[in-house]
């Protein structure tokens, strides 16, 4: 297999607080290949976004990378600082945020925001950048792109704005895109369009995508592989079909069982008992053990093995257990 675009090795992020150090990302490893979409799924506070912010170098201090390595196209980037990291942002790593209503500057025309980004990273003239801005808007499916470059963000609907955001994230042709909940703030009818757009653009260009979401539907629809996170740790990593239909980790199993499916009509949804531990009180052993129906003493004491592709971080992985 070719070298991955992004390779994260045993990454930990720490935040010093008054109650001691919390670790929102704890020893996470995964790769993303060119043209591949890796879904990162988990509950709020599981460390999904934090990992994405660590990759693009936008952790809010005092949060910082405490351990591990991040490699982008064969270059180690986790220790890059200031201007060196800034040059990668936008150029090598694009980012799409959750809320398109707030992620565009309301006082600047979208064409200006596009050309500004391109001129920062690409050795092209202003005229060329303006031409590419129109092309970029056309590519993300904005009708009348030639006129709409002169529009302000408030003149677009939510779905259209997210298309503009995607155009902005992709305009300098990065090799990796981090999409942090790109559809959560959108109408359901628009969500599918945005996902399809993101998929198409990345396939065409061979861009690697880290798709962070808590929506199992989006995962099933868009991703090639999926990483399930729980309390800052990777619970399970594998091809999306395997993970969704034959989850090996009891947490993934619970997550799948609590996803409503229209085809199954009305039924009582499964609930995982309890709640995810606070990050300053993660239990010893497996972080999931207090909520796990299969937990033993071993789960409560021994640290679980780290996962690689196709594995679950579990002493007793479920074998061929059907999701109800």
């Amino acid at each position: 297999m070719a070298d991955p675009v992004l390779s994260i090795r045993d990454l930990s992020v720490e935040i010093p607080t008054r109650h001691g150090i919390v670790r929102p990302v704890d020893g996470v490893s995964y790769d993303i290949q060119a043209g591949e979409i890796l879904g990162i799924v988990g509950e709020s506070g599981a460390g999904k976004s934090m990992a994405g912010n660590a990759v693009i170098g936008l952790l809010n201090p005092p949060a910082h990378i405490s351990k591990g390595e991040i490699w982008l196209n064969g270059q180690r980037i986790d220790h890059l600082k200031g201007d060196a990291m800034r040059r990668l942002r936008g150029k090598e790593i694009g980012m799409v945020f959750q809320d398109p209503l707030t992620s565009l500057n309301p006082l600047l025309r979208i064409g200006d925001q596009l050309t500004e980004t391109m001129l920062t990273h690409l050795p092209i003239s202003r005229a060329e950048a303006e031409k590419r801005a129109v092309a970029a808007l056309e590519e993300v499916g904005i009708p009348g792109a030639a006129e709409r470059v002169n529009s302000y963000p408030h003149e677009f609907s939510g779905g259209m704005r997210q298309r503009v955001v995607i155009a902005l994230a992709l305009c300098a042709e990065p090799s990796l895109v981090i999409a942090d909940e790109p559809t959560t703030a959108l109408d359901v009818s628009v969500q599918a369009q945005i996902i399809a757009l993101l998929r198409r653009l990345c396939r065409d260009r061979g861009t690697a995508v880290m798709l962070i979401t808590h929506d199992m539907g989006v995962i099933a629809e868009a991703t090639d592989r999926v990483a399930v996170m729980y309390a800052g740790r990777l619970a399970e990593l594998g091809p999306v079909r395997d993970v969704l239909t034959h989850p090996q980790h009891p947490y993934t199993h619970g997550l799948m069982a609590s996803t409503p499916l229209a085809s199954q009509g009305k039924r009582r949804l499964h609930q995982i008992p309890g709640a995810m531990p606070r990050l300053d009180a993660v239990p010893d052993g497996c972080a999931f053990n207090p909520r796990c129906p299969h937990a033993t003493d071993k789960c409560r004491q021994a640290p679980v093995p780290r996962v690689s592709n196709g594995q679950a971080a579990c002493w007793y992985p479920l074998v061929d257990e059907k999701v109800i």
Partner: protein
Amino acid sequence: MLAYIIRRVGQSALVLLIVGLVAFAMFRFVGDPIDNMLGQERTAEDIERLRSQLGLDQPFVVQYYKFLEGAVQGNFGVSYRQGRPVAEILLERAPATLELAMVSGVLAILFGIALGVFTAIRRDGVLANAIMSASLIGVSLPTFLIGILLIYLFSVELGWLPSFGRGETVDLGGWTTGFLTESGLKALILPSITLGLYQMTLIMRLVRSEMLEVLRQDYIRFARARGLRDRAVNFRHALKNTMVPVITVIGLQLGAIIAFAIITETVFQWPGVGLLFINAVQFVDIPVMAAYLMLISVMFVGINLLVDILYFFIDPRLRVDRSGGH
């Protein structure tokens, strides 16, 4: 936008009418100008004659109406004390105040915004914290005290700068300016710092807090995530968004600078309209006081009108009748 401006001008005219009415009503309690104008050896007859000559025997509403009638024609009556038309006196004095206010305003805006941005961007820096602490002095010390301290330091102790007056002025077709002579410029320094310091610290603290708020917004994060340079993020993206609320306050403060000039002009014996007003109050010179108050309110209202129009240029979301094509 035109309809909006017309509506605002209408509102402004109404505000001016009301200010005039309130001011006029108040003057009736300042004292009786006749007492000051006639000497000790006055007779009841003299008093009556002067009173009807000045129209002071007429009902309040009639006096107010006459004042307005004259005012719209640029005629504010004759000063009781100097016996010259008020409009003439004001025009003669206005350049001194306007030049002082302009220099103070420019100083306050330039330094206020620059220091505000600096303290917001380097919010944990030692220098930024020092500036913030020092700004408390500017906010809390009264204007006259700052003036006196400056005079003590730079005029009395060091002897670098004059302690009063405008220095030499040059007459440019009715507008006397202190900008063209060395002594005029020197004389401007202390009064304009005195007058502008409070506004500067106010603008600085406002810019800082607004900017910190803007820097937390998603679009700033997104701008950083696109790898834009710090300069572009801070100035193109953040500062522009900071300016909308800041401009409102700056507009109000410019009006306040002209109004507060009374104190600074008194401390520095600056021959402007503020000093004129103080002297007029002592003498119950009603025409001068009325004209001064109208002048100040015209400036306040005018500046606010300008500010509202400026919004349209800064914030595209307010250009409602713009056909953006939805």
